[in-house]
């Protein structure tokens, strides 16, 4: 009987300890793992797809490099009269943070003026998704994609204007 109590006493804290690591593990996983917004964007990406590249009111930005693992293509459809972005589509090959960053970017540019969009900063995307420092380049890439799309649209418009003249 004494042996049994002794055994229980010895293992009592031990079995309590095995409960604590379970809670700690969950916390560690949450810290180490992805923010739920990133997972959400990964599972339900918004605005995946393509516009026709040759449309007059579509600007296409492709940035990144397969060598570093991330490629983003962002397309915006701009309303000619008001200069407002009415729709956006993206396609990304990259890690979860890259997909989430481009998904967020495609959502945020909708309904904004083209000039406004240039002010979208990396840190806003990073903060929204709680990106760790090692993943900041994904949000930078998203910003670059937006800028490239805007530039492409303006270049197209410029060419059309020149062609008309």
């Amino acid at each position, binding site marked *: 009987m004494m042996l*049994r109590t002794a055994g229980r006493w010895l293992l009592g804290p031990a079995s*309590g300890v095995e*409960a604590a690591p379970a809670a700690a593990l969950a916390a560690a996983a949450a810290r180490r793992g992805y923010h*739920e917004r990133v*997972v959400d964007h990964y599972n339900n990406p918004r605005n995946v797809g393509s516009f026709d590249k040759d449309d007059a009111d579509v600007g296409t930005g492709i940035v990144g490099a397969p060598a570093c*693992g991330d490629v*983003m293509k962002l397309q915006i459809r701009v309303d000619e009269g008001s200069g407002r972005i009415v729709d956006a589509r993206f396609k990304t*090959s990259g890690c979860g943070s890259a997909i989430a960053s481009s998904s967020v970017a495609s959502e945020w540019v909708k309904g904004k003026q083209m000039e406004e969009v240039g002010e979208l900063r990396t840190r806003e995307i990073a903060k929204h998704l709680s990106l760790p420092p090692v993943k900041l380049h994904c949000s930078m890439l998203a910003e670059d994609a937006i800028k490239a799309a805007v530039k492409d649209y303006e270049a197209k418009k410029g060419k059309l204007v020149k062609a008309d003249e």
Partner: protein
Amino acid sequence: MKDRTALRIGSTTLRSRKYLIRRLPPPHQLPSGLAAIPKSPRGGAGTPKLQPSPPSAMALSRHLLPHFLRRGGPAVRALSTAAAPAAAVSSAEEDEESVTVKGVRISGRPLYMDMQATTPVDPRVLDAMLPFNLSRYGNPHSRTHLYGWESDAAVEAARARVASLVGADPREIFFTSGATECNNIAVKGVMRFYRDRRRHVITTQTEHKCVLDSCRYLQQEGFEVTYLPVRNDGLVDLAQLEDAIRPDTGLVSVMAVNNEIGVVQPLEEIGRICKEKDVPFHTDAAQALGKIPIDVNRMGIGLMSLSGHKIYGPKGVGALYLRRRPRIRVEPQMSGGGQERGIRSGTVPTPLVVGFGAACEIAAQEMDYDHRRVSALQQRLLDGIRAQVDEVVINGSMEHRYPGNLNLSFAYVEGESLLMGLKEVAVSSGSACTSASLEPSYVLRALGVEEDMAHTSIRFGIGRFTTEEEVDRAIELTVRQVKKLRDMSPLYEMAKAGIDLKSIEWSQH
């Protein structure tokens, strides 16, 4: 108290092994395949029986654990006040039986398909280890009492089992803490012992990090190291190896089975070359032990690193094989009381070593059966994926491969995003984003795999306890994720449109 000496482990009361078996639910209540603690199927019976497969150790525990945990839970936890709040959380988790993985809650635990990282401990190995924790817990180096003698006898018996699996003499086996320590002793110990006459080491670019790091350390001490390149299929070029050997070469180190790509190197040929040139041949056989037949004499091996937790044994134990004829000398890396013939000081951990010995014994009996079964499962996995998804590349040679390791690259899909979607399958990737730096795996780069393909690789590990259902489910989940990611991938879109991706100039920042 109506029961005799009883010990609580967690919330299970163990009186004896018989108790454990008697308390199993009756067979008709268990899912099929779990009707009994398995006995190993003996001998080669023509075709491998895939049903019923030896029950997964984790499936066994998953079904049995709630049965045990429900008994006497609160009584045990109440004793420790510090654990009270944590206990509440854990009981909630157990009740839901769900796990939070990568921010997502899934029911149950993921399928384990990462056998190269580690393997579950075989229940029979655990059975062998337990008495040495609970009752026969002596230090094997205690010479003066029964506890020491019986512990020592167990260690020597385990040593004999390990030796017989590789065709060695028990006096040539030295227990360590794992294959990393063995590799350190082998590389640094040999070169330092012969530092006056031998200044050169040859190894390959696909070795395990511990070998490469030890070589780098030696370079800082003034030795010279040749890192041999490998061919596209992962095999080392024998002519190149022979050319690289110099009169002052002190060691050739080539791993037997690669942990990332599963390629099996031609050990006999390498051993023959080394014997002709009188250079010690070291091989890291952590992934090879118990999976492919190893004979140190036929293969001319001088030193070999073995690991316990890759063959369904416990973690924290390994063994170094050191040839006696001709004797290979090493400088010990651990100073101390001179245990293990002075090669590795420190108390030999009897439970771990006994577990390692039991794992080797089981492996010797079941190697053929496991190999056939795992080959069939690998074929099933490969066929299942290839039937539904195109542009799948296998990294490494298919002919010279251990079947339990399948490293696949899916074109136009990035590895980390694929892993993120494979929430219910535990696999590993050679992708940059999963390593701390942003560089893709050095093994894949050594194979000459393009950087973009290196980013997309996934390694599936199949083992003794993998079932057909797990493989089928892995196929289903992988195919679904790959298709979804390819729909999202601009590279796939461009490739399907016929654009040559290599011709594009990418804008980087």
